[in-house]
């Protein structure tokens, strides 16, 4: 049964935000480690 | 081949002889198994979940956890007395060494399971008629596999600080297939289901054993390198 296409957008946003946070966060941590080493 | 077996049996016999003298580890492991079974009986909503429904899971979790605990003592003796290097200096094949340790561990864990099974029957009011043979075969098959992996990991973690934590952490994922298979087969055996439903799971267990015992035998020597 087709759902209302705009329903449950919150989960979508949450998932995309979490993914970005994790991936960018890890990238930043690597960058910081590189910076510390000069 | 003859040498290999001779060394393996010698190693296994030595381990088991030491065990037989003190018996501490064996008795503790058996007591542990009994306690786990007891907790299972009470860790349920008796109105919603009957003993029969919980039985296969209780048995296999008991087997799994008791097995892991038992594996902890595998190289503990060597570590305590610094005997590991002495063992390695002996001019024997590492593979035979592994196999001896493996046989000793297997015997040990199977002994604990042999004590747990009657307790299980008692505590869970299980009717084993016709199923006993199948359950014993399944227990041996499942145990043979995970003890191989556990022996390798015990050899590794004995050198680490938190060995008692490291070993379960590493070995539990490897318990998934034996436990899943074990529970599926036990549940069906107790329900009197036909052999055809069980054959597939038995094949998986057998394949698991073949693959992991062989792999562990091949990999163990690299652990003992210097």
């Amino acid at each position: 049964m087709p759902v209302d296409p705009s329903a449950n957008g919150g989960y979508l946003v949450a998932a995309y935000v979490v993914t970005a946070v994790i991936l960018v966060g890890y990238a930043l941590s690597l960058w910081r480690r590189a910076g510390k080493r000069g | 081949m003859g040498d290999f077996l001779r060394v393996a049996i010698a190693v296994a016999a030595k381990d088991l002889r030491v065990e037989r003298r003190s018996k501490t580890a064996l008795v503790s492991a058996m007591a542990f198994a009994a306690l786990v079974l007891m907790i299972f009986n009470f860790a349920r909503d008796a109105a919603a979940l009957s003993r029969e429904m919980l039985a296969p899971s209780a048995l296999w979790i008991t087997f799994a956890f008791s097995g892991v605990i038992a594996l902890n003592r595998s190289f503990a003796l060597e570590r305590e007395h610094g005997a590991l290097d002495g063992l390695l200096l002996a001019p024997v094949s590492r593979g035979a060494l592994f196999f001896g340790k493996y046989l000793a561990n297997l015997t040990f864990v199977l002994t604990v399971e042999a004590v747990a099974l009657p307790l299980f029957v008692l505590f869970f009011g299980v009717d084993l008629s016709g199923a006993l043979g199948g359950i014993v075969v399944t227990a041996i098959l499942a145990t043979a596999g995970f003890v191989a992996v556990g022996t390798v990991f015990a050899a590794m973690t004995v050198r680490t600080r938190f060995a008692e934590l490291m070993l379960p952490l590493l070995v539990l994922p490897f318990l998934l297939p034996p436990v899943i298979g074990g529970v599926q087969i036990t549940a069906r055996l107790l329900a009197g289901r036909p052999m055809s439903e069980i054959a597939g799971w038995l094949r998986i267990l057998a394949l698991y054993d073949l693959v992991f015992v062989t792999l562990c035998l091949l990999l163990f020597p690299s652990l003992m390198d210097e």
Partner: protein
Amino acid sequence: MTSESLAARRTVARGLGVIALGLAGLAAVYVLALGHTPVERFQGLPQKIFYVHVPAAWSALLAFSLVGIAGALYLWLRDPRLDLFAESTAEAGLVFSVVMLTTGPLWGKPVWGTWWTWDARLTLTLMLFFLFLGYRALRGALQDPSERARFSAVVGILGMVLVPFVHLSVYLFRTLHPQPIVLKPSSPSLPWEMLRTLLLSVGVYTVLLFGFVMTRYGLGRLERAGGADDAG
């Protein structure tokens, strides 16, 4: 500054560049998925989580296989670079499995009504997560580099071989006990717009994996070279 640390520095820089490229690609995927891909009829908006969730699972599994293969090669060739490669790949794999494990429930709840399902893929990724953790924990607990490398290699190989067994067991478990939910994201009749978004996302995640591993590897080399510098 030795040539060793110079080379390592270059690897780190290149790795960071690849990561930047990957993150830019990720942004493109986001735009594509959110703005230019049709909304699935039966699941609605949350279905789009599929585009960040499935590639993460794929990357985690790929990383895990690479760790196992690198371990086997290390045992054969005893080249410490292989061990460093395995360490780096395991770290990246851990990151991707966290992505997978957080987006999975966010997808499951609105679409199937439950935060978690024990389907083969989620279960496998959870197990990979624990194996990655165990791998890290073991490495952290061992001081001698040769011992650490050998032991990790063995864990990696055993873990890699375990994957098909768990997959098979869980699959059989589920077909015999049909769960109310079955994840079927890769239905053969995936329309082109969805397929291309998915493929782009898989490509981007692979680039990110490559960049993460390269950077982490370079950092590892740098640390080892730095140690030699200080000692020398």
